[in-house]
């Protein structure tokens, strides 16, 4: 009898494609919401993306009651409390978060406070604390990488205590994720590259780590195929709406995959590097992915071999001997990484980032060992293993 078991959950309505933003008024009405608040950041406003959303809503007679556009890159409990006050003062009844990971996480946290009441966000930190549905919440991602629009997690800094508060609950999931190619058209090349590699890593780790399951596999492989086929096309032609939509969809699919099957050593190392050296998350993913796959190789040979089909297409897959497909998959990822370096100088090694010191590698390795993602890595990782991977990624 098999011991296999898995769980899969994603109730987020995905609204994707041409004129997707124009569906927001109808969808909000369906949830009896009439007074939405927009939560976003200065970058989104500066890029002119807000106007598109506002126009789409006002065309249907839906008034955006208030806009908070000052979410910092690393959002805090103070910011969340401030936004919640504005929400209550303006008598809003729903939230639309527009932006990348920080704006979306802030939207999730604000939704906790305005739905549950009170001002102390830390009361709700942890897993499964929330017990009932929150206010209507829509997410419009403006980067194609984090997958936050389909995940049930938010991380907010508690400035006073100097810690990061994690929140995990299925009630944090948005009611809808609106994926519109207009929202990622202006993304700069290096962010397009790094966030796409973030999504690629979500999908590859989802497909190769311990909690992989048939449903997350389906999302992961589709995401990998879309990224492989469209990333370089978009890098060559940033205004390619079709390619942008494919990348945004891939990001959501990878998000659905990894939130149901978790991630492993690449993320553990990435989290530690981000905390110690303040390196952007997507860049960390791009840096570590090939080296971690090499480290895990003998434990993941079978699924990694399968991925060659989605990374390089059927011709390369069929022309490659079965025994060499796993190595060929890693080569394909290296090739993509090198091409991105050529396009926008996305660093290929830790040394190239100029932000990491060789003396910090030990601290990164130690911190990574205690990361929650480590549990799902297919191989046991010791300090020596972690430092070995870091040294290979160094230069």
């Amino acid at each position, binding site marked *: 009898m098999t*011991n296999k*078991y*898995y*769980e899969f959950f994603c109730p987020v309505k995905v609204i994707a494609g041409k004129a997707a933003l124009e569906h927001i008024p109808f969808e909000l009405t369906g949830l009896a919401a009439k007074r939405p608040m927009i939560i976003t950041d200065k970058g989104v406003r500066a890029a002119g993306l807000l106007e598109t959303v506002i126009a789409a809503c006002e065309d249907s007679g839906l008034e955006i009651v208030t806009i908070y556009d000052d979410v910092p890159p690393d959002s805090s409990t103070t910011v969340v409390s401030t936004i919640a006050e504005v929400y209550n003062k303006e008598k809003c009844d729903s939230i639309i978060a527009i932006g990348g990971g920080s704006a979306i996480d802030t939207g999730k946290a604000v939704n906790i406070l305005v739905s549950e009441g009170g001002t102390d966000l830390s009361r709700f930190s*942890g*897993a*499964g604390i929330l017990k009932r549905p929150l206010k209507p919440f829509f997410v419009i991602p403006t980067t194609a990488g984090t997958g936050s629009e389909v995940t049930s997690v938010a991380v907010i800094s508690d400035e006073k205590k100097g810690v990061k508060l*994690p929140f995990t609950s299925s009630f944090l999931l948005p009611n809808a994720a609106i994926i519109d190619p207009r929202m990622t058209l202006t993304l700069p090349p290096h962010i397009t590259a790094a966030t796409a590699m973030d999504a690629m890593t979500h999908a590859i780790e989802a497909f190769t*780590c*311990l*909690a992989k399951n048939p449903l997350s596999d389906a999302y992961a492989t589709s995401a990998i195929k879309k990224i492989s086929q469209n990333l370089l096309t978009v890098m060559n032609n940033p205004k390619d709406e079709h390619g942008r939509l494919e990348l945004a969809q891939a990001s959501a699919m990878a998000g659905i995959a990894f939130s149901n099957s*978790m991630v492993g050593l690449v993320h553990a190392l990435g989290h530690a590097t981000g905390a110690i050296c303040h390196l952007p998350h997507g860049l960390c993913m791009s840096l570590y992915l090939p080296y971690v796959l090499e480290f895990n190789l003998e434990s993941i040979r079978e699924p990694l071999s399968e991925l060659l089909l989605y990374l390089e297409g059927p011709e390369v897959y069929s022309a490659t001997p079965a025994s060499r497909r796993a190595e060929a998959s890693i080569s394909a990822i290296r090739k993509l990484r090198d091409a991105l370096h050529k396009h926008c100088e996305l660093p290929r090694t830790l040394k190239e980032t100029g932000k990491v010191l060789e003396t910090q590698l030990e601290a990164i390795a130690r911190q990574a*060992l*205690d*990361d*929650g993602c*480590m*549990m*799902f890595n297919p*191989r*046991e990782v010791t300090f020596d293993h972690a430092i070995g991977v870091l040294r290979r990624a160094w230069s």
Partner: protein
Amino acid sequence: MPVKRIQPMKLQARRHYVELMFQVMGRALQALSEVDETTREEMRALPEGFLFELQVMPNGPTLVIEHTGAGKMRFHGNRPPRKVDLSIQFKHMAHAFLVLSFQEKTSVAFANDRLLVDGDISYAIRITRVLNRLEAFILPKVVARRAVKEYPADLRLPEKLMSAMRIYLRVATHSVETARA
């Protein structure tokens, strides 16, 4: 009729087995921290007085351990002396049995959503490493391979046998002392 009688007996036996394994593991963890420097090194990262429990939901068998400082652990039986800092909970007795009868590795149980963590996840990861080390020491290699993600390549037979002997001896001594008390 006999089937109806056998079923509760089977469930009872499973419960007793899990309770017994928790008792053995609790004492063995205490002993491990006395004989193994690597374990003490892992435990030193936890605050002194840190209490954690392994529990079967809801209100099932429980194993409570305290970090008493310098990497040493103390087994508190099944009742915490105060609110625990970290709780790792099996969702059901059947899930605990799968892990404790070595049909499912601890890491796979986490991946299969059989376990809930209430508390700092990084401490839970550290404690899982200690549990893995304990299993690698006290179980025959063929069984340990079923329990841990990867059997430690650097664990040689003489070290394993010596450590296992010292751990089992301390578990026996501790059990006798508890019985006398």
